[in-house]
């Protein structure tokens, strides 16, 4: 309905639009304001940028028709009720069938709980909670690997470094951070190591000295920091201030800028970040460098490391629609996504399973990397040993 009226309007306006050129509305539901906007807003921006690039390159070709993408983005504030409202509105009112974005697990979980009954396809970005892809929802895929996939690789890495007693300080009330630590612990224990304490902090906490003082008394070989960038940066700084001089490992995915706002480069020196090989300039591929440059130019700020998850969604969707040969049959498009090879334009470095970007669970896997803070920058040091196929098989056994 909406498509035809739009085309009619275009034609009536007497523009030079070709008869066969149509508009395809795609939706974004993400945190555009509030605390989680640090993750959500760059994702929404990334989708818009990808859509413009696709349009500039001639749009999406389905049979004889060419579709130009139009992005409708709603703010879900990372709140579950708001997210189900904005997705309901996209589907019911705006007639959108393809919904991208989704930076945060709670809001994503709410939408994932009903999306199976809808005539729509949902592409999840940065939300890392494992359960989102354990239910094999046919019309849902996710570009970011679950946190425990990365946690296991991180545990192996830290164990290989010879650390036995690891103290954890994390946002452990958040499910996927806890699951990262669980997987980390399992690998660490295999090598004879142990987690000596699990300390927690809240999203708004910035004074971590009580937890760090306790950790200092325990005398661990290393500390592991898992949590959002903004509080995590304070942990690194305050650990130095308290005189803790053991190796610091982390899972935070923050940019240099975000850390330097809180801590000096000297205080950050030597910190490890063990995470999916997301965007950092020094590790980026040609696509990554171009993405970084285009995004910075368009929005006047560097893209967040996790924002390409949403950028890549857009290209995966484009390829899937073209492969399915339809924009109306969402089942066909969802099926095509599951069969898709990794598109050429993506920024992240995906590890295909059986040659496909998304596995049977709808889950994509990137490589995991060990990054270290050296002289003011995150430097890519090495790939973490990660086995996407094995994890994919494991994921299929959970429900």
């Amino acid at each position: 309905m909406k498509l035809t009226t739009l085309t009619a309007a275009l034609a009536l306006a007497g523009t030079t639009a070709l008869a066969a050129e149509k508009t395809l509305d795609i939706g974004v539901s993400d945190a555009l304001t509030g605390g989680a906007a640090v993750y959500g807003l760059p994702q929404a921006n990334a989708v818009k940028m990808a859509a413009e690039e696709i349009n500039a390159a001639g749009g999406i070709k389905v049979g004889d028709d060419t579709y130009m993408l139009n992005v409708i983005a709603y703010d879900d504030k990372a709140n579950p009720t708001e997210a189900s409202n904005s997705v309901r509105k996209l589907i019911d009112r705006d007639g959108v069938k393809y919904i991208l974005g989704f930076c945060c697990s709670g809001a994503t979980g709410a939408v994932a709980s009903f999306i199976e009954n809808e005539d729509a396809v949902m592409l999840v970005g940065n939300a890392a909670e494992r359960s989102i892809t354990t239910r094999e929802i046919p019309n849902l895929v996710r570009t970011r690997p679950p946190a425990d996939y990365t946690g296991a690789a991180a545990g192996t890495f830290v164990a290989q470094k010879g650390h036995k007693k690891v103290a954890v300080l994390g946002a452990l009330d958040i499910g996927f951070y806890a699951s990262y630590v669980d997987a980390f612990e399992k690998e660490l224990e295999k090598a004879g190591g142990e987690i000596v304490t699990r300390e927690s902090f809240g999203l708004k906490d910035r004074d971590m000295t009580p937890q760090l003082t306790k950790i200092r008394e325990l005398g661990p070989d290393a500390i592991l920091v898992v949590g959002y960038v903004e509080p995590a940066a304070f942990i690194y700084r305050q650990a130095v201030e308290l005189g803790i001089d053991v190796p610091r490992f982390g899972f935070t995915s923050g940019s240099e800028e975000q850390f330097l706002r809180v801590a000096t480069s000297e205080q950050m020196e030597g910190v490890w970040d063990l995470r999916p090989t997301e965007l950092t300039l020094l590790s980026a591929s040609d696509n990554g460098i171009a993405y970084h440059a285009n995004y910075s130019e368009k929005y006047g700020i560097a893209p967040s490391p996790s924002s390409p998850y949403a950028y890549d969604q857009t290209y995966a969707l484009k390829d899937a629609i073209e492969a399915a040969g339809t924009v109306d049959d969402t089942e066909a498009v969802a099926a095509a996504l599951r069969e898709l090879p990794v598109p050429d334009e993506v920024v992240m470095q995906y590890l295909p399973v059986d040659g496909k970007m998304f596995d049977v669970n709808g889950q994509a896997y990137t490589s995991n990397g060990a990054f270290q803070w050296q002289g003011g920058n995150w430097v890519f040091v090495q790939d973490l040993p990660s086995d996407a196929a094995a994890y994919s098989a494991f994921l299929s056994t959970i429900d």
Partner: protein
Amino acid sequence: MRWNGKTLLWALALVGFILLPQLITVKYYLHLSILALCWVIAAQGQNLIQGYTGYVSIVQAGFMGIGAYSTALMGLHYDLPVWLTILLAPCVTAVFAVLTGYPSLRVKGHYFAVVTLAFNLVIFIVLMNWHDLTQGEAGITGIPKPGGKDSWLNWRDRGTYYYFVLSIAILMTGLAALIVRSRIGQTLIAIRQNEDLVGAIGIAAWKYKLFAFVTSAMYAGLAGAIYAHYQSFINPEIFGVAQSLDAILAVIIGGSGTIAGPVIGAFFVVFLPEYLRFADSFRLILYGLVLVLATIFMPRGIVGVAGDLWAKVKGKPS
């Protein structure tokens, strides 16, 4: 005459609510209406303690959370039928309300507000951190609808759920009206007007306050349970202090200490953000401004303003 006019209005509203699903073409607004009806129930409860008794409680969303989690967890772990867990949810909430109400009602006014707010924070932190029980921030998914798959009603259809919530909202509004007209309700109003006086004539005011607080919490628990089964998903995020403030806002905007007030206020609170979306980043500011202006210029809410207008039309001094 006045009574007839009022009854007529209620009857008209009832007809309107019954016809609503037929009038709505975009299903999205039906979805919002269901949410608004959940809020009607919660706001009727809030009104009992805030509007009638005069104690601002900032824990209504926390109690909704307790109701929502109890119905979901009882269904999950004990395999109880949905209708039973929905009925049990307010009872579980009542237990918590007695435990929290007893200490907090020892203090008055602002103290009480802050203590209840602290309770909401505590509920939130526990829901987030007690991972084994609540699954933390990831939340509980797949909460079943009231009827099974082979039920004669299609519960997946939003129209069905709408009428389900509507009937409960009507029942609970009726119950609130009965409470208010009863001797208990009159005592609550007396407490609001002059608590010392109530104490002076030998009435144990604290019993009545506790009754109001616990009843209000049970309303919240019921609303939370109905919400949980509608959305099929809950996590702690939706039961935070911000949502408790929404309950307060609903009562104030609609008309504090009136039965119609929370009904109007709840719809206002759910639909207002929709219409403020054009100014997304200013929404918080506008929201606050509405609250401040409404309190200063129409302290009796929409119902109060409408009443004054009605009186003017009828040519009677208000």
